[in-house]
């Protein structure tokens, strides 16, 4: 394991790994949920936590240069006095690094309207797998050639290591309103999500929580969430005041048309923050009822939410597991949480069986394997569910183009046998 303090030191570390033909794995804060930063075998782990400086904030041009270890929330905090913020806000934003966000193409509640990480990364200075430092993308709007920047974002450390990152900052909106709608059924809440989008409103954020998690959060935070609701929607709209007012009433109307019991509009910033605190504490709150949870991540077309949520419940029930849903409903990004006690014998088989069933149900509904956590190790072997052999072969060749040596985070993202004609036998001593 090493802790470089500059991009040159990352390059030196990668260079040494290369010379000794040792695989290397980039690691930010280690909050990743797909196992992308998990060492497999005995690689060199290159940890970016010491590279946590914000190098420059250009307020006029709304661009920041950061080192990869900068904590996501620290960037927005540092830009706050300038009336700017960094839009991608994963729920783990107090801990995760911008480098890790680039690695996973992270999303967050406020990515519904403004886009996930890739839409906010302008340039990345990367250390390629042979130790060479190069810039992908740039601050000018276009560069001649392919969008290698776009390709690198979300590559989970398999195409090199980000050593310096330029991101776009957005101006804080003049008006922000946060709404809480509660429903007597999950189906009504899910139909409201589709209804809002169909009405031509794209909120800044549109999150859903089902009954079990709502109650838990309410016990934990006391945000005033209705304990008897089957589902709640937390919706935020922002922008210029008249547009925001029109969207607030439009959303209220769609909600009531779908049977919302209450439409609460936060009166002030304190109430808004309280409502968000509930959402952001969801994962912490679970510790109150069970020691362990498995958080899934998959996406379905938002028009299919109602049926897929019902399927998720059935699948969990069939394995006799409690499932809770707290997720980015606006973009169809499900996060079913399976709650359990790992000490229970045989529990992992059930958790994995349910998880597998959930992912398959999402794919059958026209969805994809992951919306924001990535593929890593967790979903690597499920890739053939959504890609055929030619698709996987093309991805494998693309990866080899970036990393001919095959030393950059091997064993992640693509299943063995992705290259057409490649032997699928595992080499001696590898972790499967």
């Amino acid at each position, binding site marked *: 394991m090493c802790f470089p303090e500059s991009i040159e030191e990352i390059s030196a570390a990668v260079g040494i790994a290369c010379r000794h033909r040792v695989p290397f794995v980039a690691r930010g804060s280690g909050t990743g949920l797909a196992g992308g930063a998990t060492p497999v075998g005995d690689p060199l782990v290159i940890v970016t936590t010491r590279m946590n400086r914000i190098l420059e904030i250009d307020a006029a041009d709304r661009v920041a240069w950061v080192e990869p270890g900068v904590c996501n929330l620290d960037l927005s905090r540092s830009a706050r006095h300038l009336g700017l913020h960094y839009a991608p806000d994963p729920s783990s934003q107090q801990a995760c690094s911008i480098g890790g966000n680039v690695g996973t193409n992270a999303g967050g509640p406020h990515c519904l309207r403004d886009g996930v990480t890739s839409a906010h990364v302008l340039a990345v200075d990367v250390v390629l797998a042979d130790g060479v430092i190069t810039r992908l993308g740039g601050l000018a*709007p276009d560069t001649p050639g392919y969008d290698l920047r776009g*390709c690198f974002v979300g590559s989970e450390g398999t195409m090199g290591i980000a050593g310096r990152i330029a991101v776009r900052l957005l101006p804080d*909106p003049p008006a922000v309103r946060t709404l809480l709608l509660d429903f007597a059924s999950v189906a009504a809440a899910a139909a409201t999500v589709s209804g809002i989008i169909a009405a031509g409103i794209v909120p800044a954020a549109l999150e859903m929580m089902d009954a079990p998690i709502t109650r838990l959060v309410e016990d934990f935070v006391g945000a005033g969430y209705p304990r008897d609701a089957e589902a709640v929607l937390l919706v935020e709209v922002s922008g210029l005041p008249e547009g925001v007012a029109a969207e607030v009433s439009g959303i209220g109307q769609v909600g009531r048309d779908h049977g919302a019991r209450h439409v609460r509009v936060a009166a002030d910033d304190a109430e808004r923050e309280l409502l968000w605190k509930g959402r952001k504490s969801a994962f912490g709150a679970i510790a109150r009822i069970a020691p362990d949870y498995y958080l899934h991540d998959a996406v379905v077309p938002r028009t299919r939410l109602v049926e897929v949520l019902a399927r998720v419940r059935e699948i969990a029930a069939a394995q006799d597991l409690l499932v809770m849903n707290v997720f980015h409903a606006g973009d169809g990004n499900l996060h079913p949480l399976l709650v359990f006690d790992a000490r229970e014998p045989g529990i992992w088989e059930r958790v994995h069986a349910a998880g597998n069933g959930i992912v398959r149900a999402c794919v059958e509904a*026209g969805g994809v394997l992951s919306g924001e956590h990535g593929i890593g190790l967790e979903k690597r072997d499920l890739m053939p569910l959504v890609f055929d052999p030619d698709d996987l072969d093309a991805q494998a060749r693309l990866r080899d183009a970036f990393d001919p040596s095959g030393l950059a985070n091997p064993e992640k*993202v693509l299943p063995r046998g992705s290259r057409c004609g490649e032997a699928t036998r595992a080499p001696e001593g590898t972790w499967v």
Partner: protein
Amino acid sequence: MSAIEDVARSVERAAAVEITGAGTHCGIGAPVVTEGPLTRVAAPAGIVDVQPADMTVRVLAGTPVASLAAALAEHGQECPLDPEDARATVGGVLACGVSGPRRLRHGPLRDAVLEVRVVTGEGRVVRGGGPTVKNVTGYDLPRLLVGSHGTLGVVVEVVLRTQPRAETGRWFTTTAAPGELRARLYRPACLAWDGARTHVLLEGHAADVDAEARMLDLVPTASPSRPPGAHRGRISVEARRIGALATRLRDLEVTWLAEVGVGTVHVGATDPGALDAARFAASAEGGWLLREAGAPDLDPFGLPVPNSALHERVRAAFDPLGKLNPGRLPIAQVQT
């Protein structure tokens, strides 16, 4: 499906392929050159599936942008590809990678593509990305294909992100400093500065548009026209250097229009030499100029592709025999 298979078979059989769209962007990129026979291939056309409640559309890449726009307009939606000439095909616009004038608010072209289906140089049909609005399953092929000038694959089908059309979209003009406009307006769709005046496109709720216009004394006007001239290009420069670039461009026989906050500067000239001079000015400010029309003797990009070794490997991953649009995007030969 069979139309896509047809493209795949043509590519497979061909020695070299030139991919054709509507021909509206043919000034972009270098001419296709090959010694042997050249097979012309076009992507099929047609709108496969509009999903307004999902804000996505699946479309065959040979579809004219105008047809796509009309189909989306029926649902009050749009996809801001915004080429100058709406006869352009969706695939052609994406391959050229030229973003529309509303990039300041709506982002670059590459952010609009969710899924791509391409025919690679070996005639395989490969899909990347996915149909949902959010997705990190596998590598980002959609972004890679945007701006690849047809050298990685024949884009045959795409899924695009759509958005509701704003209630109001109106152009205004003002002599206020562009920097001040950028600082005071909340996410305008376009700030097009010609050195004297700025054309401002505001989108949103009518009352908000009116209020912002009043606040800054903006005067209603028609949309600005792109700089005229037979020889045209677009400069890409860091947005903060537009002012310095303008100072240089003022001394030249060119007309120009800068997208403030973006860093795109549209340039037009009656003399190809003047376009070359604009390119020189751009490079003095760390930018570059893409030739878009005319100036046949001008290098199409004027700047070697950076990371040429990596670029060459990526190209070879999709088109190992170099069949697709050979010569269109010159990548410097790498010394090994």
